[in-house]
């Protein structure tokens, strides 16, 4: 490990993944195993869980203890919120959105899934595909996580039997045909013993696919981002109050889709004015082109009035513009959604308000059926609704772009984030 390692490190890609599974399927053990086998665990952390394992009277160290967080939860032996974990191999840096839990599960998984490239779905080999598995697969599809890896865990408890694995695979595939998922892989593992997690299993010669770590390190994610439809929501306007940059007016923001090049013509929404890109600046450097997910500052040839919430686009791809929006939502709050109620919205960099016009149906996430009779939307419910906004929104369908197609609902009285929306 020397200079080469350092250079390698600079070439690493970032991969975000989320984990889903019912209680006791082995999520914590699996994450602990990934951290442990990739040497992301430090001696003092190891000592601390050894102490904790001993206290609980367990033999050996319990890898699951590595990943549980707050003390109250630790004491109750449950985890109830999204926690983020980090590890790296020479190829990639990983961010895990660890979303275990019970009642608030859907809300947690949706939150973790919103930024994930990959979903790991755990299935207990003894139980096979159960209602919860359907729910997890559905959420992964609803949130458009580009890749799903189904880990069939506890293979050691079913004598590493190939038929059991194949049957689970077939059952899962049946559900997947009803969903909008594109890339599903299956791996038979034992999180506890380590089979096919980082090291190849000696107990399952019949399995010829990659280990979980190999997949995480190599799955192709570069084309998950939309590089076709140029979208640049203006976040902040930079006007330096200093002599040498007297006339500088820069539009700061993060590219949320497509590619912008110096000299190209851009259109400003909502005003409709057009201009050309004069420069693309990152600190003291100017660059020729920029793409998602870079944060840059763009200057234009013409002096036009642009503020936060406006969007720069290119005329070859105009987003939808409208006030009546059809979307899927997941509700996060004990206070149910109010039909006709008003909420604050955040969409890209704009703040606006909306009224809930209609609830079309609620989805029963365990059976994947639409319920048009029960329109009461409460905590953890998923539904299709329509809203009307106070001003025009420039958006894409969530399928086309996860960033310009998503929004959050905020309660006007409590300021809490009460729901997430994916535009259809």
């Amino acid at each position: 490990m020397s200079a080469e390692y350092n250079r390698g490190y600079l070439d690493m890609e970032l991969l975000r993944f989320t984990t889903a599974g019912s209680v006791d399927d082995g999520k914590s053990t699996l994450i602990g195993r990934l951290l442990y086998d990739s040497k992301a665990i430090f001696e003092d952390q190891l000592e601390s869980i050894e102490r904790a394992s001993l206290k609980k009277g367990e033999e050996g160290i319990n890898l699951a203890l590595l990943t549980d967080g707050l003390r109250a939860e630790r004491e109750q032996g449950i985890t109830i919120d999204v926690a983020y974990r980090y590890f790296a191999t020479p190829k990639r840096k990983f961010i895990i959105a660890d979303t275990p839990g019970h009642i608030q599960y859907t809300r947690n998984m949706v939150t973790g899934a919103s930024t994930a490239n990959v979903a790991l779905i755990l299935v207990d080999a003894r139980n096979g595909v159960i209602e919860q598995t359907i729910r997890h697969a559905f959420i992964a599809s609803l949130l458009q996580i580009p890749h799903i890896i189904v880990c069939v865990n506890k293979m050691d408890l079913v004598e590493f039997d190939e038929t059991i694995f194949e049957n689970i695979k077939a059952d899962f595939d049946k559900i997947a045909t009803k969903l909008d998922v594109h890339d599903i892989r299956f791996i038979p593992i034992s999180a506890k013993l380590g089979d096919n997690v980082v090291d190849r299993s000696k107990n399952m010669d019949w399995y010829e696919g990659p280990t979980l770590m190999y997949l995480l390190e190599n799955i192709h994610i570069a084309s998950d981002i939309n590089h076709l439809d140029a979208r640049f929501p203006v976040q902040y306007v930079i006007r330096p109050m200093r002599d040498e940059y007297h006339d500088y007016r820069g539009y700061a923001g993060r590219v949320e889709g497509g590619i912008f090049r110096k000299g190209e013509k851009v259109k400003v929404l909502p005003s409709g004015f057009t201009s050309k890109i004069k420069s693309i600046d990152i600190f003291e450097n100017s660059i020729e082109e920029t793409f998602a997910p870079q944060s840059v500052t763009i200057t234009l040839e013409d002096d036009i009035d642009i503020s936060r919430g406006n969007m720069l686009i290119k005329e070859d791809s105009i987003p939808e513009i409208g006030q009546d929006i059809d979307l899927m939502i997941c509700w996060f709050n004990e206070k149910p959604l109010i039909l006709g109620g008003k909420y604050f919205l955040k969409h890209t960099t704009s703040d606006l308000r909306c009224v809930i016009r209609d609830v079309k149906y609620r989805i029963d996430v365990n059976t994947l059926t639409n319920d048009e009779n029960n329109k009461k939307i409460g905590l953890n419910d998923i539904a299709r609704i329509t809203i009307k906004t106070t001003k025009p929104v420039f958006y894409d369908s969530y399928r086309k772009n996860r960033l310009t197609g998503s929004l959050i609902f905020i309660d006007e009285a409590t300021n809490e984030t009460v729901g997430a929306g994916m535009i259809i």
Partner: protein
Amino acid sequence: MNQYKINHLRELEAESIFVIREVVAQFENPVMLFSGGKDSIVMFHLARKAFWPARVPFPLMHIDTGHNFKETLDYRDKLMADTETKLIVRYVQDSINQGKAVDETGVNASRNKLQTVTLLDGIEELKFDCAMGGGRRDEEKARAKERFFSHRDEFGQWDPKNQRPELWNLFNGKKHMGEHFRVFPISNWTEMDVWQYIMLENIPIPSLYFSHEREVINRDGTILAAGEYVALKEGEIPQKRIIRFRTIGDMTCTGAVLSKAGTVEEIIEEVAATRVTERGGRYDDKRSEAAMEDRKKEGYF
């Protein structure tokens, strides 16, 4: 399409810059906390990048325990002058003089916990509605569930059970009068990322991070700088050692490591090989398993 991708450091950088700009867009009177440690140095560097060619549009605030290494203060003052940044300093000693905080006594005395009082007073006095901090989620178990935008009630307290869900890159900074936010722009960075980025961007850091000779004592496995603020226990004799610091803060509880790393490259190699967390070297965190969590609920950084 392969050319259209960026490495993980650039992606983390873009995310942090987005968060810092979001703070300036959403809050009226934000402040950035600055300790002189490498995390706050990186955070401040990101802030400069976020607003260039304008100056950073908010002040920095240093909560001074009075137990600082001189190198840290010299570094801080030079950086502020070079970048024309406004610095506010609030002293833990003032809180003690006002009777709002009581100095711990005895051999393990530390002012880390007292910083909270001074910090909350500073926020109230100067009417800041958002304080950005350099906390990272990989630092400690209790931080793993912290949000980028962390809501605090009118007493500055954090309620881990009632956090706002954070999705995509939509950050909800709405609040009522008297409440404020803590924002952690480098939440997703690890210690390794911070060092790699310092190397990538050539960011100057205080000399304490590099190997040097210093009088130290070894207390229950933690190497502490022998100085006027560390009371010696019976039988403790300061000895000269070649060391460097992995974190720098209050002299009374900042642990050093024996090290010959004299450049950022060498530090990176050392971090890659090391098997103890940064906080493993912090004496005050060792006092109790849940020490950090308790401090956070009270409004610690």
